[in-house]
């Protein structure tokens, strides 16, 4: 059963076509990855799903229901669609803890009056969120040592991790990660890959990600869709996608497939 289904999606800005008749599905409780060369439309697709762009054609169905253009980004967030950004979009003036707590915003109810007096229900709610964030997220992502620090003072890898924490605090059903390991060193990448797998296995969250690091993509994905020039080239299991001549062409622009196949697949599986 697919939790997210994209059907015949087309998006263009003036004369520039970003997405053209894109269809693919995200099976429930999988790590699904969208790959493709730069400018293929991966981030545009993410922006359509989270509601920033309105596609001219096509539908996006989430849990069996079509997300119309009238459902704005904040509502999509409360429906359980969380995401991180390619160029980290944390609140730099706040501490790590406050950033993560903001993720829980949609699940909190206290109003302005409650906030002003900070008493009773408003206070209890804040404490519950704090407890939940501490035990479920900060502990899990191993960022307890930096919880008091302002985000601006952290390294790139840690900032990415805090952004993941913030998305998890939203208690999402589908977690969209835009290049979660870009610019990280090997150790940070391994950590992130482990977190992503744990998120799927232990928390039952469906992960949809865009990523360029092929090693990681092939290792942890259950399902891959390949995008090129705004169109889906193919989708399927990592092993099948790896062997697809169209994919190799999209990446390397060469028809001498046999020699390239060995390069793309250094493990040397029989071509």
């Amino acid at each position, binding site marked *: 059963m697919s939790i997210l289904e994209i059907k015949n999606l087309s998006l263009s800005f003036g004369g520039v076509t970003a997405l053209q008749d894109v269809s693919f599905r995200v099976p429930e409780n999988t790590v699904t990855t969208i790959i493709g060369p730069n400018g293929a439309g991966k981030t545009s697709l993410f922006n359509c799903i989270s509601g920033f762009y309105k596609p001219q054609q096509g539908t996006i169905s989430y849990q069996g229901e079509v997300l119309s253009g009238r459902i704005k*980004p904040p509502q999509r967030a409360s429906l359980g669609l969380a995401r991180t950004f390619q160029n980290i979009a944390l*609140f730099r003036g706040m501490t790590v803890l406050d950033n993560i707590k903001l993720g829980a*915003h949609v699940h909190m109810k*206290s109003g*302005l009056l409650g*906030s002003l007096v900070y008493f009773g229900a408003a206070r209890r709610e804040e404490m519950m969120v704090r407890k939940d964030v501490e035990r479920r997220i900060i502990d899990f992502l191993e960022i307890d040592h930096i919880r008091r620090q302002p985000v601006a003072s952290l390294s790139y890898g840690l900032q990415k991790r805090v952004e993941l924490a913030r998305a998890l605090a939203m208690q999402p059903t589908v977690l969209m990660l835009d290049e979660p390991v870009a610019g990280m060193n090997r150790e940070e990448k391994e950590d992130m890959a482990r977190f992503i797998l744990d998120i799927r296995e232990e928390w039952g969250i469906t992960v949809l990600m865009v990523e360029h690091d092929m090693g990681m993509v092939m290792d942890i994905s259950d399902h891959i869709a390949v995008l090129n020039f705004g169109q889906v080239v193919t989708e399927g299991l990592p092993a099948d996608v790896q062997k697809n001549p169209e994919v190799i062409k999209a990446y390397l622009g060469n028809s001498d497939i046999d020699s390239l196949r060995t390069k793309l697949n250094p493990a040397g599986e029989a071509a």
Partner: protein
Amino acid sequence: MRIGDAKQTYESDEAIWTTATQKFWFALFLLALLVFPLLANSYLLYLGCLVGIAVISTTGLNILTGFTGLISLGQAGFMGVGGYTVAWLSLNTGLPFPITLLLAGLMAAAVGILVGLPSLRVKGLYLAIATLAASVFLHFIFAEWEPVTGGMGGLSLEPAHLFGFTFQSDFRMYFVIVPLAVLMVLAASNVFRTRIGRAFIAIRDRDISAEILGINLLHYKLMSFALSSFYAGVAGGLFAYFYRVVTPESFPLSMSIFYLAAVIVGGMGNLLGGILGAAFMTLIPEALKLLTSALTPFYPNAPVFMSPMLEIIFGALIVGFLIFEPHGLAEIWHRIRRFFRLWPFRT
């Protein structure tokens, strides 16, 4: 030097004062505020009341400009709405001051929401101009809506009263203004411990990612406008009770700039900064006047020479602070605190 930070509960970790030392100093500060009017002469008392009013209004503007990132030049207009509401209620109803001040705040909040409506589309300097237009518009209403506002002559009002007790002197007004200022600043600091305050800061820092987290931008921007104008309205109401007259010229445009400067000099997005900024902006001109009179015995010409200089010195001080301490007075305060906390070690 303070060592260790062994908190047992999340409640104690999220408290406004996390250490006994902080609680002690705050209690001492409250005591000083209580004792001050008993010792102060009428001039100092007058200044104390003015600072109290300025603290409330600056805190309000800080919520909007410092924490939510929406620049407003309408503060004087919102204060005017509060001032006129109190004046009108005092003349036409016999309501006691807690109710008139509350209504003044609510009225200003309603006007604030209206003025805030363009803020979803208009940002930065453009929003400043939009609020400036609103301020001019409000000024026009104060001057022209004679049956209600008394036109250019304005309105004179009765002293504030509660249960038959009237607050006609500065000494008595002090006990209305200062406790209210303390309560309102504490309420503001509560807001920034909860989801609403975080949403405000999120909008300031990165509005797109605030939206992705489920924060409805228009809703929270309007809420920030309403809250900020509520503070301005209460401050304006106190202003009316304090001077017992409101005219269109009581709330000039320069007052909006005064409060914006107080927020910037004090430290944007820092409640303590708002307090320090309000005190600084209110007291420095007075201090310069005192300096002039102190110089007069030695230089008989001092008043002639100094009176045009005052504005220049005042302006230079503000520019100086912006250059040498862009994070405002609050940052100086934090540095001093850090020094004592780390003493005798330094970092």
